């Protein structure tokens, strides 16, 4: 994320409830671990870090010019064990682009999320991109009494399409919007889905959303991730919070999204610095669970060199260790003197690729998997290892 110019910020794990109250919905507040501090103030462990970042931007970073590009990493906690896949705590890495609106900003954050998923080691993934305004437009346009509208919304948020169907069946007025709501989970695909949906909607909000989505898709092709993007007009998320383009990242064979994000232009105003904003989180716990269950789970990185020493070889060993690290290799220098046989045993136990044994100022032997042990001058060690590794 540094390469994209996002500055790392650290927000506290414990936040005042007054701050969290401003930014969180009722359900989210209910799921917080709360307690009181010594002054009797109610504080809570954060359940997400977008609100703390928003407070930072409106508070400490008030003088900083917008747009701001910020990223963070840390644990978040929830009382609802089901929320984070039967754990109370999960580790999130996220980024927020604050003070920029429009498709170019939306696409930047989606592309960054994609690159973050790649950086975790996920080989195949897919990003579903939708738009909260598409849904809001339909709900505006659909001709229903207010109480039925509320029930329709609840059914949709609960993903209960059987309930939704019976609600809509009971109403006399049929419109294109009825049909769209019922087909919500199926409204996904390539750019063609935008045209299909465009032919059905008759309201400004939804039409504007479709135009914006089409632009975001073009931009994502420009970012080089067009082939992993799927347009999902039926994306169901927290519609009170999200105000624009929303997205979710899915890995292979895993039953839930590992990355989520979207535009939330309403949040910053609650902290007194109105600004458009968009961002995402990657759930690192879920990613690591997914990767370890894959057919070829990632191995821990191998140590490149085990540097052993005996007698006057310590100085040489320390110097060699520094040089190897300068070349980008992982090198461990032994903490105790060992003879040749013990050094070999230590090397095997470490599972390192190479063993460098320093027996004196200028007396160095090099052993490597499947090769005979050779003696060579210390100044050649780094070059030989680097050559062999590249």
């Amino acid at each position, binding site marked *: 994320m540094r390469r994209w110019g996002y500055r790392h910020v650290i927000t506290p794990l414990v936040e005042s409830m007054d701050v969290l109250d401003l930014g969180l919905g009722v359900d989210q507040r209910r799921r917080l671990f709360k307690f009181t501090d010594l002054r009797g103030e109610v504080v809570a462990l954060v359940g997400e870090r977008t609100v703390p970042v928003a407070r930072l931007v409106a508070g400490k970073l008030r003088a900083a010019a917008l747009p701001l590009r910020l990223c963070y990493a840390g644990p978040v906690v929830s009382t609802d064990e089901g929320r984070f896949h039967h754990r109370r705590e999960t580790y999130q890495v996220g980024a927020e682009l604050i003070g920029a609106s429009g498709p170019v900003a939306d696409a930047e954050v989606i592309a960054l999320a994609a690159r973050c998923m790649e950086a975790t080691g996920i080989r195949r993934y897919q990003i579903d991109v939708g738009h909260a305004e598409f849904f809001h437009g339909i709900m505006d346009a659909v001709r229903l009494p207010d109480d039925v509208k509320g029930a329709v919304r609840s059914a949709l948020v609960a993903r209960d*399409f059987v309930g939704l169907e019976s609600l809509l069946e009971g109403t006399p007025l049929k419109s294109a919007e009825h049909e769209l709501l019922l087909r919500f989970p199926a409204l996904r695909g390539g750019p063609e889905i935008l045209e299909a949906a465009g032919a059905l909607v008759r309201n400004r909000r939804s039409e504007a959303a479709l135009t914006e989505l089409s632009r975001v898709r073009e931009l994502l092709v420009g970012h080089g991730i067009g082939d992993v993007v*799927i347009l999902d007009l039926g994306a169901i998320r927290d519609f009170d919070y999200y105000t624009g383009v929303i997205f979710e990242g899915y890995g292979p064979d895993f039953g839930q999204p590992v990355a989520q994000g979207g535009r939330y232009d309403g949040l910053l105003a609650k902290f007194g610095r109105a600004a458009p904003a968009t961002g995402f989180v990657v759930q690192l716990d879920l990613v690591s669970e997914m990767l370890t269950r894959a057919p070829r789970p990632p191995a821990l990185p191998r140590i490149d060199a085990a540097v052993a020493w005996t007698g006057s070889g310590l100085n040489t060993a320390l110097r060699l260790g520094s040089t190897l690290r300068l070349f980008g290799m992982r090198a461990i220098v032994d903490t105790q003197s060992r003879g040749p046989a013990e050094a070999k045993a230590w090397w095997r136990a470490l599972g390192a690729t190479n063993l460098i044994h320093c027996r004196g100022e200028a007396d160095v032997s090099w052993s490597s998997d499947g090769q005979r042990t050779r003696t060579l001058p210390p100044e050649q060690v780094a070059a030989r290892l680097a050559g062999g590794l590249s």
Partner: protein
Amino acid sequence: MKANEAVSIALPTGVLMEGALELLTRSGLLSLSAEELGRQLLVERSDLRVILVRPADVPAYVDHGAADLGIVGKDILWESPGSHYELVDLGFGDCRLVLAVPESSSFDGPDTWPPLMRIATKYPRTATAWFEARGQAVEVVRLHGSVELAPLVGLVDGIVDLTATGRTLRENGLRIASVLGSSTARLIANQASLKTRTAAVQSVVSSLREAAGGDR
């Protein structure tokens, strides 16, 4: 993404199993006898993998992605809402979730309830929400079986339980005071399966929807 692999569907043991297998046969997806599935618990055939699990476990299998689809009673879904999509009312397995009280009890509608109602049920979440929505204080005792006994021995004022014909209730000297809701078998889907294996999963969903007599 797992496009080459079979679509998996979790079926419940118990009263819905027959209906679920019949539906699979009618849809032309797979013909399987209850005995065969009961013996093996996991059958893989013609691009469909069928898993047999306890009814209350179906949402867990689907929500965690161990099954792409599941067939489960609405009563179970009331009790364990999750991240799955509820897609089709399959139309079989009709039953009602009711408040039942002893024949001799004076309790009927909300006006007749005591200040604190004591209820035994296998559906604590649904029962609590239902009473709370009616402004009624309730003490819920969670039982795992033979719920009908609880009011007879004075443990509670009434029970909230599932009934198809009302016979078991009558046999135990209970009568229905209120109906909390009607339940049928539902088809549920994992959220990620719908999104990452859309074509394969949707084709099974359509077959089942058609076989269930849905018009969409």
